[in-house]
Each structure stands twice: as C-alpha cells, then as structure tokens.
C-alpha cells in the first residue's frame, strides 16, 4: 500500500497542476488594469500559502519532536523547512517579476514582500544550521526550538513591517488589485491553484521525508556495522 502513495500523489499533482494551468491561461479572463501579467498572481499567492503552511509545519513538527522525541518529527521539520524555503524563494522571485512591469522596479519594500523576505532570512538560517551541523539529537532539539521561535515571531514581524510601511509610503504603492477579484472565474482559478499547490506540497514533503528517513537508516546501519565489526575482532 505504502508504495502506491508517492505515485498517487505525483499523479494527483500533475493532474491538478495541469488543470490549474489550463484555468490560468485559457479559462480566466484578463484583468482590466494590469493586463495579462496579473495572471502571475494565480501562482504567486499559492506559493505564499504553501510557504506559510510549510513554516507552520516546521513549528508544529518541532513542538512534537520536543514533546514525543521520535525522529520522524525532526525529519518532518527539516523537510518542511526546505520546502518552505523553496516556495518562499518562489514568492520573492514571482513577486519581483510581477513588480517590474507594474511599477517599473524590481523590488519594493511593501509590507508583504518585506515580511516574506524576513521569513526567507529566518528559515535560511535554519537551513544553514542544519547543513553545518551533524545529525545529532542536540541539533534536532535546537532546530525544533528555532522553528518554534520563528513561527512565534511571524505575527509581530507582520505588524511591525506594516507599521513601518505606513509611515513611509513614498516609494511604493500598496498592492491593490490582489484582492479585488471581481469575476467569479478568477476566484475559481485561484482556488484550483491553491488546491494544486497544496497537493504538490504534500507530494514533495512525502518524497523529501523519504530521503531523510533513508538517511537515518544509513546512520543506523553504519552504527550496527561498526558495532558488529568491533565485536568480530574481539
């Protein structure tokens, strides 16, 4: 049964993605103000959604690891953090590409992009930690704490950045047009996109988790081998 899951998830991902793409490029009408570039939104927002989903998962997995101690929670946290970074990068990249034709500049310090960038830095640090450190229990606990602290910080980052931006409205324009989805076809397309990305996230999570568990298995096997070899020499 287990062997079928990744294949099912992969198939579901392909299917939902193709549907979403169809809806984005064929079905949904073009937005009046921004033209066809606005269609970036239908994938940009789901990327942000997955980012928050992933980072939330890092914290929850961290909490569960600290509470229950089973390695799988640690692996889940690590996998979720990597995926979160991937999609966070995509939010920044697509956001930047969207900004250029609309406002003429590659980057604007508007509250949403700035918040996303700060998150990117926080979880970048998390991944740096993981890559520099060995796969020990201490590091796993530290990473869990870091993940929880990161998520705890998010609301206050959002508030402070928003306050910061209202005081200096100079360079930027607030992102109107994002939530002005007048046509119900736009809402439908967005929902399908969100669904497709969520399924893709689950699939990628599963796949990444599998490699992390393999890594743990390698470590266990190496340990057993070392013990046996030491015993054989006695």
């Amino acid at each position: 049964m287990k062997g079928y899951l990744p294949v099912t998830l992969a198939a579901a991902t392909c299917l939902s993605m193709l549907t979403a793409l169809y809806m984005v490029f064929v079905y949904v009408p073009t937005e009046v103000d921004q033209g066809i570039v606005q269609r970036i939104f239908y994938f940009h927002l789901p990327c942000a959604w997955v980012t928050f989903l992933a980072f939330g998962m890092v914290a929850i997995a961290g909490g569960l690891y600290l509470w229950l101690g089973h390695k799988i929670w640690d692996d889940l946290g690590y996998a979720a953090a990597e995926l979160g970074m991937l999609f966070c990068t995509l939010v920044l990249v697509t956001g930047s590409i969207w900004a250029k034709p609309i406002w003429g500049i590659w980057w604007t310090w508007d509250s949403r992009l700035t918040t996303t960038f700060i998150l990117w830095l926080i979880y970048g640090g998390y991944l740096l930690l993981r890559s520099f450190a060995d796969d020990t229990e201490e590091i796993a606990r530290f990473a869990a704490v870091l993940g929880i602290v990161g998520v705890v910080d998010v609301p206050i980052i959002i508030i402070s950045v928003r306050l910061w931006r209202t005081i200096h409205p100079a360079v930027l324009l607030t992102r109107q047009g994002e939530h002005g989805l007048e046509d119900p076809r736009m809402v439908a397309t967005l929902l399908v996109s969100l669904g497709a990305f969520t399924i893709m996230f689950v699939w990628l999570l599963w796949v990444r988790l599998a490699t992390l568990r393999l890594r743990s298995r390698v470590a266990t096997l190496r340990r057993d081998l070392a013990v046996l070899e030491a015993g054989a020499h006695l």
Partner: protein
Amino acid sequence: MEHLGYLFVAYSSIFVLIGLYVIFIGRRQVRLEREVGRLETALHDVEQAAGVPQPPAEDL
C-alpha cells in the same frame, strides 16, 4: 499582448526551480538507496563471518 515575457519568465521559473529541487531529491534518493544496499550487504557478510567459530585464543 504586452508583458508576455514577464508572464512567461515567472511561470517558467516556478517550474524550473521546483524541477531542480525534485532532481536534487531524486539524486539524493538514488545515492542513499545505493548506500543502504551496500551497508546491508556488508552487515550480512559480517554477521555470517561472526557465525563462523572463532580461532582459539592464544595461550599467554
């Protein structure tokens, strides 16, 4: 259709980045599976060898 280029680059970058990540995991997976196989065979060999009676300890 203005700004078509931007639209194209945006969507391509999404799929390219995700695709690269999937390739990265795929290669990790293959490498780890190979390692697991190697270790399991090695473990099996050592276990077999341990089953063989040990040579008598040297008299001091």
